[in-house]
């Protein structure tokens, strides 16, 4: 275990009393609580932390937070591994395991470093121009292996994620000086405030700038502010929380990082924040400069160097050269100087930096004004930088100066972080001097403040942020007086944007570091006549790395405006897409995983089924018994046994999920007559009629029995999957098309339990129960309904069924159905009663020749296709879908029609999904397909149902049925196999 050779003796916000050890690329290091992986590595003198995507160039730290393009690492291993994190954002914890990505064995010694030799062959878009012979497939595997950064876990994520909805008056994004001031103002004005910051501590740049606010040290002011907000019942402070996206109507999505340790109950939380007003105080990101070899480790942003030195007490280098075009960088230089880092020189691209340069000079720092960087020297670490007079002051590289150093701090300008604002469609104006897009007039409910609004001095940030918070609160309806804004010393913060030095021969000058996009690549794209910034971005991949161009986009625009001879606003910027910073997929799914993904509905008989060892399956969102394992050794046997019981004795089927819709009112009959394809007006009270419903396109969408309980009272039963859909259709037509109809509809599906008692012994079984309903076939014929009491519970019994046997559907309040089910099983055991699952029922109805909507019909089936054409002729009134049945396509004779199919081989069960092949020789063309199929013990042969072209006119025809390479000879038949006269049904 080494000590930290580059750790400053004192200072920093790290907790020196809590040393932590961690492993990077297989070597153990130590740091302190409060370190990021980046600062700890720097403290340990680790300069090379990553390799670039394409050329595997050695790369060091450029930034200190989310803007970092180079230091991409993989954390942990196995189920809890996390790929592609930025070392600058990783807080170290004891035992943390990290390794660099896209290199082997380590970032320092990367076996793939040789790839940079091929650099000349790999300009922007090179892959579009080659790899075509013999075929892309030859090259792709190798290229895929070379591409990609981190490694995905291969086992399910053990961690938990959550989501939370939040509503507030003012959401403040960013916990720097501007954001804190805004939150204070809004909160003091009486607004409900949420303040979010993506760092572990509030304060933003105040964490590394020695400043004072309201006469006290800035960080004390921050602490006091945080305390004040936390004390307020109407304010919420969220740290380690990234506002990653702004969506319609002021919905801002946040991702909160709670705990990576397995101990933590929740790893991350997704917040949906609906805010009346949003203040975006997300700060600004410093820009590097584009010059030859500007990617050598040791070249970093001035603000990052300052942050490492002041916040983390790390010495980023011993002898630094500053190359700047901003006043803010002088502050950084001073901060490094007082920490004992030698400042070799401040090279200012501005001809006359003014007072700030003079005071630096007085402090003994050599100033080179009007100079620009020409090239850096060094491969694994920067050794020196050559600077020269900028073209504006003579020829480039003229009177070149050579500056030895091990650290180059660059500051080419500041780019306001306006992602959220722009996602909210905020307008932007371009500030030429500062070289930045600055928010123009605020957009609906959105305003920017502080550095995000282009204010770089602390004083401006505070006053501006405070004002923004106060206005936002006011706009959200808060009325109290926010009081006075915090104050800091006024200071200059001038910037003259500097993008890039003139070309240095053919030396590479990097624009997008991670994706290895150089100035030359941009030149190539322009040379090939790609002029739109979107084209150039896609062709060169600049700005498309995991940092999404936070440090590269503006420099690219700057260079392009030069190359295209167009102003930056004319070129325009590429769109800011969510997320601002990458978001964990688990966080987005939150709790909608596993059993909570698409919740299942349970029937009132759930426990009874489980007790009979039902094998449950998801049928249209209901958790229903497919078959009962207690009935045999295997699935086939169980289904066979259940079918036998239904045919020879008596069966119980849980029909509770069947849709039940009450339709009441004087116009109920009229209404249903319009909703059903069949005529329902003429249905007599107490009677039942089978009916189908159509969409306005004439297509069958559902079927079931329609029960008329009284003149003005109907009960519509739908398929279990159709219940809410049909109920919705009823409401839709009543509310929007026929508001004049006096009808009320009620979906009572869940209120009633439903048990189908079917089989030759069904009546015998029911007669053993205490009921006031006369079950005699003459008093209670098929397709009629009776209401009464069963075991002194209100019941409705309908003589309908799906098996083709004598059957009674018992409907009673759901709460009693379990108890009735038990009673039926007891009383029925002497006669061999048995519960049957969906599989058995499907086979029973198949051999009976009953169709099942959705199985034996598809999204095109019309009534005539299933043999109900004549109903139309007899019905004169209009109904939903009627006009569509009168179109040419509906009258084609070769439409798919519902028929029976018999394999020539009686024992062959035709596969469902097999097609009637039009030309068996060529095996081309379909004449329809098998929709249901089973072996029927009752009939002693296999039977199938299907939709066949012109089927009903082809009864008796022999056909070939194709399934996955095999052909089955079969015959088209009428599907009335079982009990064609319906004697059993009407028994």
């Amino acid at each position: 275990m080494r000590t930290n050779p580059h750790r400053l003796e004192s200072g920093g916000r790290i907790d020196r009393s809590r040393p932590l050890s961690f492993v990077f690329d297989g070597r153990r290091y130590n740091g302190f609580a409060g370190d990021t992986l980046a600062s700890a590595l720097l403290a340990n003198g680790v300069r090379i932390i990553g390799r670039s995507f394409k050329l595997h160039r050695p790369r060091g730290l450029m930034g200190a937070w989310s803007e970092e393009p180079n230091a991409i690492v993989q954390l942990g291993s196995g189920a809890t591994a996390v790929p592609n994190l930025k070392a600058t954002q990783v807080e170290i914890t004891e035992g943390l395991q990290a390794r660099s990505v896209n290199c082997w064995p380590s970032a320092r010694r990367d076996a793939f470093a040789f790839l940079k030799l091929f650099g000349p062959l790999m300009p922007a878009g090179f892959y579009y121009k080659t790899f075509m012979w013999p075929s892309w497939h030859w090259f792709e595997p190798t290229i895929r292996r070379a591409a990609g950064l981190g490694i995905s876990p291969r086992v399910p994520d053990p961690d938990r994620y959550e989501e939370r909805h939040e509503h507030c008056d003012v959401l403040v994004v960013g916990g720097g000086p501007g954001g804190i001031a805004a939150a204070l103002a809004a909160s003091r004005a009486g607004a409900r405030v949420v303040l979010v910051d993506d760092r572990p501590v509030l304060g933003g740049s105040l964490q590394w700038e020695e400043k004072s606010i309201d006469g006290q040290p800035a960080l004390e002011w921050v602490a006091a502010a945080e305390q004040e907000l936390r004390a307020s019942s109407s304010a919420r402070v969220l740290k380690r929380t990234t506002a990653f996206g702004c969506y319609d109507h002021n919905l801002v999505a946040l991702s909160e990082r709670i705990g990576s340790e397995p101990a933590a109950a929740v790893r991350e939380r997704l917040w949906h924040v609906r805010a009346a007003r949003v203040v975006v105080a997300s700060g600004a990101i410093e820009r590097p400069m584009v010059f030859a070899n500007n990617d050598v480790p040791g070249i970093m942003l001035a603000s990052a160097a300052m942050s490492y030195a002041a916040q983390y007490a790390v010495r980023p280098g011993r002898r630094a050269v500053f190359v700047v075009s901003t006043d803010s960088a002088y502050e950084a230089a001073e901060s490094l100087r007082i920490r004992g880092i030698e400042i070799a020189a401040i090279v200012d691209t501005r001809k006359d930096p003014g007072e700030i340069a003079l005071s630096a000079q007085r402090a003994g720092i050599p100033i080179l004004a009007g100079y620009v960087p020409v090239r850096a020297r060094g491969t694994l670490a920067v050794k020196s930088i050559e600077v020269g007079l900028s073209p504006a002051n003579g020829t480039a590289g003229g009177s070149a100066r050579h500056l030895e150093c091990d650290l180059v701090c660059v500051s080419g300008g500041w780019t306001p972080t306006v992602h959220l604002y722009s996602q909210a469609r905020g307008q932007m104006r371009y500030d030429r001097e500062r070289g930045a897009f600055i928010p123009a007039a605020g957009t609906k409910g959105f305003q920017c403040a502080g550095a995000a609004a282009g204010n770089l001095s602390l004083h401006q940030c505070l006053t501006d942020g405070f004002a923004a918070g106060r206005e936002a609160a006011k706009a959200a309806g808060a009325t109290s007086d926010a009081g006075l804004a915090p104050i800091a010393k006024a200071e200059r913060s001038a910037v003259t944007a500097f993008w890039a030095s003139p070309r240095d021969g053919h030396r590479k000058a990097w624009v997008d570091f991670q994706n290895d996009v150089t100035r030359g690549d941009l030149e190539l794209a322009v040379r090939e006549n790609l002029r739109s910034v979107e084209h150039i971005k896609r062709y060169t991949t600049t700005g498309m790395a995991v940092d999404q161009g936070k440090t590269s986009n503006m420099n690219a625009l700057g260079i392009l405006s030069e190359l295209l001879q167009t102003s930056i606003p004319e070129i325009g910027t590429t769109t800011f897409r969510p997320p601002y910073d990458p978001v964990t997929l688990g966080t987005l799914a939150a709790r909608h995983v596993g059993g909570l993904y698409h919740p299942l509905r349970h029937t009132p008989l759930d426990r009874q089924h489980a007790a009979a060892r039902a094998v449950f399956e998801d049928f249209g969102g209901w958790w229903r018994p497919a078959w009962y394992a207690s009935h045999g050794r295997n699935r086939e046997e169980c289904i066979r046994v259940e079918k036998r019981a239904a045919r020879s004795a008596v069966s119980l089927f849980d029909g509770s999920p069947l849709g039940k819709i009450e339709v009441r009112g004087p116009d109920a009959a009229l209404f249903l007559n319009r909703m059903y394809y069949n005529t329902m007006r003429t249905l007599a009270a107490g009677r039942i009629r089978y009916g189908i419903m159509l969409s306005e396109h004439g297509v069958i969408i559902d079927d079931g029995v329609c029960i008329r309980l009284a003149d003005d009272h109907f009960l519509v039963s739908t398929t279990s999957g159709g219940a809410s859909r049909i109920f919705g259709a009823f409401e839709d037509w009543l509310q929007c098309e026929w508001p004049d109809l006096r009808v009320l509809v009620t979906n009572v599906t869940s209120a009633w339990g439903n048990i189908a008692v079917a089989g030759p012994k069904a009546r015998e079984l029911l007669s053993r129960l205490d009921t006031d309903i006369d079950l005699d076939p003459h008093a209670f014929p098929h397709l009629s309904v009776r209401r009464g009491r069963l075991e002194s519970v209100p019941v409705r019994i309908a003589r309908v069924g799906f098996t083709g046997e004598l059957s009674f559907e018992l409907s009673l309040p759901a709460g009693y159905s379990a108890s009735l089910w038990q009673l039926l099983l007891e009383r029925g055991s002497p006669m061999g009663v048995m519960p049957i699952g969906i599989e058995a029922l499907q086979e029973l109805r198949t051999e009976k020749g009953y169709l099942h909507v959705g199985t034996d019909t598809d999204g095109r089936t019309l009534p005539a296709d299933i043999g109900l054409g004549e109903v139309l002729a007899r019905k004169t009134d209009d109904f939903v879908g009627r006009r569509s049945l009168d179109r040419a396509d509906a009258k084609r004779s070769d439409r798919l029609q519902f028929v029976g199919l018999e394999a020539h081989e009686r024992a062959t069960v035709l596969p469902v999904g097999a097609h009637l092949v039009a030309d068996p020789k060529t095996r081309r063309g379909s004449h329809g397909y098998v929709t249901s199929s089973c072996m029927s013990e009752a009939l002693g042969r296999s039977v199938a149902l299907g939709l066949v072209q012109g089927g009903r006119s082809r009864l008796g025809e022999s056909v070939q049925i194709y399934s996955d390479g095999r052909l089955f000879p079969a015959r088209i038949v009428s599907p009335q196999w079982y009990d064609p006269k319906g004697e059993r049904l009407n028994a």
Partner: protein
Amino acid sequence: MRFSAIALARNAVSYHERWPKLWRSPEPRRFYDVVIVGGGGHGLATAYYLAKEHGIRNVAVIEKGWLGGGNTGRNTTVVRSNYFYPESARIYDLSLRLYEGLSRELGFNIMLSQRGILTLGHSSHQLEMLSRWLNAMHLNGIEGEMLNPRQIREWLPLINSSPTARFPVKGAVLQRRGGVARHDAVAWGFARAADALGVDIIQNCEVIGFQREGDRVVGVETTRGHIRANKVALAVAGHSSVLAAKAGFRLPVTSYALQAFVTEPLKPILSCVVLSMATGAYVSQSDKGELVIGGGLDLYPSYAQRGNLPALQAVVAGLLECFPCFSRLRLLRQWAGIVDVVHDSSPIIDHAPVRGMYLNCGWGTGGFKAIPGGGFAFAHLLATDRAHPAAEGFGLRRFATGALIDEGAAAGISH
């Protein structure tokens, strides 16, 4: 200059300073035989095939923004021809066959990667649907295989194979010829080849109206002046209704936002394209290593090409149901394209209701995979005024006769 490894090496020596333009930036002429409105994949492919197959080279492609900037540059790049209806199979397989030769034909690597597309079934009903679909494919002359759970695990070692999964994987249909292609490259390749054949590609040129003579359209009014043409072709997916309105007619089209998502780049983890019938989510891994993820449409009309949260959450939850190990990966980018949706989700390639005008629209979410086929058939219609055999049935008439071609309705698996 022909693109090749040699060309690349030669230019490396000259520091890549001698590469010619990919295409010209011509000033619009006063008159063209055909003006194609819309510089997306379909418009550019149409222009290319007009010039190459029919010798009609006095053609302009007019693009409001930058070419390939619409759905061509926003989709999830899946190509496949696993369709139920013979009509669909014809056009999409024509397209796939053209894709298979496209890199060499255009001399531009579109990176067609036929790594196979798996459609997962999660219930006995879905398995029946899959085999109905697969057998239809076979009878349409399209290859495909049914995979059992064990075979699926060989293709997808990371698939959620837990028996207690909310949507257990019970089977899948595989089309080996399906896969992905580099979307920008398709647009750029067609543009470069069309330009080389003399087609004028005019970017940053918006059509603001149409010139009429009687009941006939004889040209377009653009932000860069009037351009006369014998024939005006619309290939403006997403905005078909908007252009139709300018020409004075309405279409059976509704515009929806279709979202797409990518994760950060990863080392190879997923070898093929996967679509789940139960969750509707689909995913593939790009050559760069990003997981490219898609799902259903946002459920109301939109022309805003931006992401939305509910759909994102639903799609990601669906993805994690099938691949729980992807939970710790991170979303890098979210965006949306605007697609033309027709009731039967099948395209419209036909004469417009206005004389002199032609339509290529309604591809819904299936537009990218159809670019070469759609362009080929549309060029045929423009050149001959007769529907190409592969495009029969995709006319406007079907909405009056009811002869819709609805894959979703027939096989439960829509585009």
